[in-house]
Each structure stands twice: as structure tokens, then as C-alpha cells.
């Protein structure tokens, strides 16, 4: 009798109930759908610039123009010093890595609203969608990084005082941190946007504000020196740590603090975990509220 009972209750493949356990992350299911993940990435990359004249060139135009403008405004007009590094290269480095974060963040933060059509008709682990955004943006990031390298070589041959240092081995980790931060924050926002649309508007100008406190166009040390009272805003912002570190490893300017590295790593993991938990909670019912 006992045997029979366990058999009847135990061999259900899955169960649908009103509420998930808080920490059932479904990562195993995501793995089962890895083919779909890669197909979405392919779709995003292939279709991004179909029927545009310049095509992938747009990937290059945007960071280059932004860097030129930043150099004119912040370095030439406002006279922010970038030390021995050419200001244009300094800005380009910051913008390249910052762009990867914004692309991941804005891409994932509209997950639910942009995919309501698909999500309303078929089930697959919803996590696939934001993950595909983060991965397909890597392609764009790669192209922008290439352009940065072209300018790096140019300035190096002109005799500028720049060069890689040994921390370059951490570069993939930095990119991963940026992706995970964008993904985590994006998922939190996307889950809340399903109910409260106000956040969508907030995200737009929030990103602009965030850029100014993320050390994209100035060295952290410069901010600390000029505004010591508010320096913590920049210093404890994991984004500015990543940007500063990337510039450090690529251009050999600034500092690397191992304590801050651990702090950033932990923050990222917490944000990502929180993002997945909130996202998984939202995915169950969002179709009723969107």
C-alpha cells in the first residue's frame, strides 16, 4: 500500500501550482532549451540591421561620435584631465564598456512588454529571452572593442604613453560583471514594468543620470578630488569600478583595488540572484497584468 502510494504521487513529471518556491530558479530547464537560446541570439544578430544602408557600421558610428563629443565637452571645454592618456581613447574605452551595460540593461528591461506576443502563446523558460539579449550584445561589444583596438594601435604608434598591464587577464571577468549587472537590473525592472509602467519612463532618464556617476568620462580620482563629499556615490558604484578597472588594464591609467573587486563581485551576484528570483515570480502571471 505504501509502495503504491509513493508511486502514484512520485512520478509526476511536473506540477503547476499558484506559487513557485521562492528559490526554484529553473536553471536546469534553461539548459534544456539552450538551442532556443542560440537561435534567439542568431535572430537578434541577423535581423538587427536588415534593410539599413550602413548595416553593422552603426555599431561603430555611435561610440565614435559620442567619444568625439565627450572629448570636446569634458576635456577641451571643461578641462578634465585624463593624465597621459589621449582623452579620445580614454572616453572611447569608457563608452565601449558602458555601452555593453546599457545595451544589456535596456534590452532586458523590456523583456516582458516586448515579448508579450510570444509569451502569451507558448511556454519556454522566460529567462531565455534576457539571456539571449546579453549574449547577442556581446557581438556588438566585440565589434566596438575591435574599433577601440584600432585607435589604440594608432595612438600607440604615435608614441602615446599607454599599454596593457597584467590585470588584462581579468578583462573577461569585467565584461561578465557588466553583462550580469545589466541582466540583473534589467530583469528587476522588467518584472516591475509589467504592473507599473511609470518605471519605463524612469529608466530612460535614469540611465543618463547613471552614466554621470559611473566614471565614464572622468577618472574616479578626479571626482574624489573635486567633490570629496559625494565621492562615495561614484566609489561604491560597481559600474564605475568596472569602467575604471577596464581603463586600468587597457590604458594603464588609474588604480586597481582588490577590496573593491570583491565588493563588486558580491554586489553583482546579489543583483543577479535577486533579478532571477523577481523575474521568475513575475513570469508566472505577467500575462494577466501586461
Amino acid at each position, binding site marked *: 500500500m505504501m509502495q503504491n502510494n509513493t508511486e502514484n504521487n512520485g512520478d509526476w*513529471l511536473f506540477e503547476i501550482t499558484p506559487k513557485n518556491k521562492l528559490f526554484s530558479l529553473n536553471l536546469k530547464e534553461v539548459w534544456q532549451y539552450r538551442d532556443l537560446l542560440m537561435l534567439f541570439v542568431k535572430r537578434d544578430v541577423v535581423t538587427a540591421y536588415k534593410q539599413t544602408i550602413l548595416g553593422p557600421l552603426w555599431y561603430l558610428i555611435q561610440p565614435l561620435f559620442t567619444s568625439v563629443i565627450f572629448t570636446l565637452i569634458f576635456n577641451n571645454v571643461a578641462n578634465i584631465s585624463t593624465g597621459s592618456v589621449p582623452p579620445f581613447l580614454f572616453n572611447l574605452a569608457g563608452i565601449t564598456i558602458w555601452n555593453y551595460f546599457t545595451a544589456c540593461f535596456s534590452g532586458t528591461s523590456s523583456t516582458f512588454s516586448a515579448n508579450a506576443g510570444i509569451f502569451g502563446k507558448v511556454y519556454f523558460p522566460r529567462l531565455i529571452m534576457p539571456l539571449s539579449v546579453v549574449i547577442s550584445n556581446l557581438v556588438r561589444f566585440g565589434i566596438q572593442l575591435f574599433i577601440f583596438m584600432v585607435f589604440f594601435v594608432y595612438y600607440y604608434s604615435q608614441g602615446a604613453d599607454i599599454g596593457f598591464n597584467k590585470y588584462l587577464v581579468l578583462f573577461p571577468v569585467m565584461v561578465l560583471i557588466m553583462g550580469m549587472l545589466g541582466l540583473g537590473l534589467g530583469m528587476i525592472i522588467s518584472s516591475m514594468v509589467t504592473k507599473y509602467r511609470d518605471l519605463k519612463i524612469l529608466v530612460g532618464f535614469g540611465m543618463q543620470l547613471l552614466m554621470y556617476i559611473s566614471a565614464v568620462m572622468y577618472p574616479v580620482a578626479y571626482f574624489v578630488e573635486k567633490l570629496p563629499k559625494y565621492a562615495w556615490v561614484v566609489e561604491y558604484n560597481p559600474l564605475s569600478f568596472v569602467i575604471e578597472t577596464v581603463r586600468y588594464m587597457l590604458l594603464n591609467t588609474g588604480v586597481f583595488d582588490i577590496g573593491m573587486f570583491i565588493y563588486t563581485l558580491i554586489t553583482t551576484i546579489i543583483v543577479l540572484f535577486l533579478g532571477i528570483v523577481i523575474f521568475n515570480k513575475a513570469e508566472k502571471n505577467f500575462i494577466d497584468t501586461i
Partner: protein
Amino acid sequence: MSNIILKIENLSKQYRLGLVGTGTMGDDLKRWWANIRGKEDPFLKIGDINNRATRGTSNYIWALKDINFEVQQGEVLGIIGKNGAGKSTLLKILSKITSPTTGSIKSKGRVASLLEVGTGFHGEMTGRENIYLNGAILGMTKKEINAKLDEIIEFSGCERYIDTPVKRYSSGMTGRLAFAVAAFLEPDILIIDEVLAVGDAEFQKKAIGKMQEISKGGGRTVLFVSHNMAAVKSLCTRGIVLENGGIVYEGSQDESVEFYLSNKNKDQRKTFNLLKREDRLGSGEWKLSQIEILNKKGKIVNEVISGEPINIKLSFEIFEKLDLNKIFLGVAILDPQEQKLVSFLSDEMNLDFKFFENRNFVVLQIPNLFLRASIYSINVQLGHSTKIEDYIDTIEDVSKLHVLPGDFWNTGKVNRSGSFSIFPGRFN
């Protein structure tokens, strides 16, 4: 017991009317407060049943309420019901698109749902790329799609355009390609919602054939929602009828269809009184007061199925006594262009009207409805003779006769629609 593959227990789903969402921020806070104190969601206690026609007292309604059923392995379950009965909500919960408010679903198999064909199709990508993408969205792995790619392309009939972006396809072609992908899905449990309506007649036939093959051949468990009663009858092995968010009938597919047809628009029919019709001709000693269409089981229905027996019951209001030997009754069935297709004339048939001494109705029995699926109209003519000056009461278009497609030839196939007759006969 061990064959149950899907078990639905006390399933309910609540929605809030009016505004989108589950309520205002205030309601959210109350809910959150109740949750913190470990109490039940206060809004679950209220809520009206799902009836779109009546005005409720609460803003919350139950789209589904206490649904319980089990599905056996290999069964093809038809789910029928009026618009808004909760069919789509049920399918959405079963396919994990939204979660239930209370209750649970237990499954022993992989579920794939086809609530729409072509989900995730991207116009910029080629047919081939879309097959991979759509297949993966529906839960196939790349390996599975690779193995079936040729079959899918062949089934869709889009071979020539397979490397052309889908945005250049006609809508029919897109539909065919999408259905082709879906047709080669191989889950343990397949959930289908009215997806047969894509493509031209030829492709629809192919699609229904494929569906039959899936449901009969593979021992696959299928949940099928459709308004096409003939398709439900020929594809399903069991049926449930939903009404206002609850199950009102559970039984064989034929019984379920009959239950559904006889209950549909019940209220509307009851109030229909022919005496109120003004567009009638005749001296008016007797007046036709009611027409009822009955199916083979004697139930009043609004729709009948091609090839099945029906009875038409005509009731009269008798104002003056008439000489029963001098009565003529004619009933005609007309196609939508008002061309007479069939007529039943009492003088030809030597009908003796003596029974009118004891009752006020007559039943026209048609043992086999030789009409294809369409909407026909019925004319009734009562007179002392067939001449127009002898009319007692004549009404044109007394009632519509909705005929649904059926399996006239007993071949398991649904015969085509069309406003003309279908006749017994055979090739030899």
C-alpha cells in the same frame, strides 16, 4: 489509475474586471499585508462567476472555478464551450503561460501547446531559419528539427520559397509553414486551440488528416479546443463542456457535442414566440406559435449535424375550429439564396390531420438530413389548399436551420460544407 497522464485538481483562476492588472496599488498593499500576517488573500473570497451577459456586483470574477478532471494516456479530449466559457484560460494555464489562482495541475508528460501557429516567426528571416526558431520555441531541439526538416518543408508545400524571407510570403503560405512545424511536434501531451483554420481548403484537409494521424496513430494525448463540432466529433475520444468557468458536462465526444448544442442559447430560444411575427399571410384561424428543432435524442437544439436524423416540431395556436379534412400543410427548406431545396407537402404525403383533435402540434420527422453544412431557412405554409387565397397562416423564414458538417459517409472524415444537399449513393 496508472494511465492518468494529466490531473487537474480544484483549478480556479480569478481576474479583475475593468482595469488591467490584478487591482490597484491599494489592493496590492492589502494583499501584501494579509500575506505577511500569514492570512489568505482577501480578494479570493469574493468574485462572481464568469457570465459576460449579466452585471455582477464585484470587480473580481472567476474565469475558471473549481475545475477537476483527469486525462488518460492516449486520450483525445475535446474541450467545447461558448465564447468566454473559460476554454482559453484553461489552455493558458495548462500550457504554463499563466498560473492558476488556486488548485494544481500534475502532469506525467512533456506538454507542447499550439495556441497559435507561427509564434515567433520573424519576417526578416528565411523560411528555413523560421522553421528552426519556431520549432525551438515549441520545445524541439535542434537535432529533432534537423531530423524532420525535409518532411516539414515537404508538408508545408513551400519548397521553392524556403530560402526567401518570410515577409515575402503570402499569409496563407506563412500559415502553412507554421502549421507544418507544429504538425511534426512530438510531445507526450499536445494542446491545440483552433489552429486548423489556416490555409486554403486543400491545406485544411491535409491539416485535419495530419491531426487525425497524430491523435489516432501515435497514442499521443491531445487536448483539443474548437468550435468546429464536426472536428471535435471525428478527432476526439472524450469531451468536456465548459460554461461560465465550470465543467457542466463530461462524457463521450458525441454526447458532449450534443449537450453543448442543446444548451447553447437556451435562454434566447425560450423567449422566442412566433405569434409576435407580423410578416405572415393568411386568414389566421390557426397561427403557428412555435417551431422547435430536435436532434435524434429528442433534445431541442439550434444546430443539427449533417447526415443525422432531425425532427421539426410545429405548434399552433388554435383560435377557431377548422375542418380537419380540408387542411394543407407544407414545410420547405431553402438555401441562403432562398432557392427551395426540399419541400414536404401534406397532400402528397396523404397526411391525416385527425391528431389535431387532441393536440396542437405536428412533428416532421426527417430520418437523415441530406444537407451539407450551411445555414438554411424554413418556410411553413398552412392553408385550406395550396392556393394563396386559401392561406390560413404562412410564414417565410420561420426559423434558420443551422447545419454543421458531419460524417455523412461514416468514413471518419468530415464532409465539406456548402448550401446544397448530400445524397446517399456509392461508386462501384
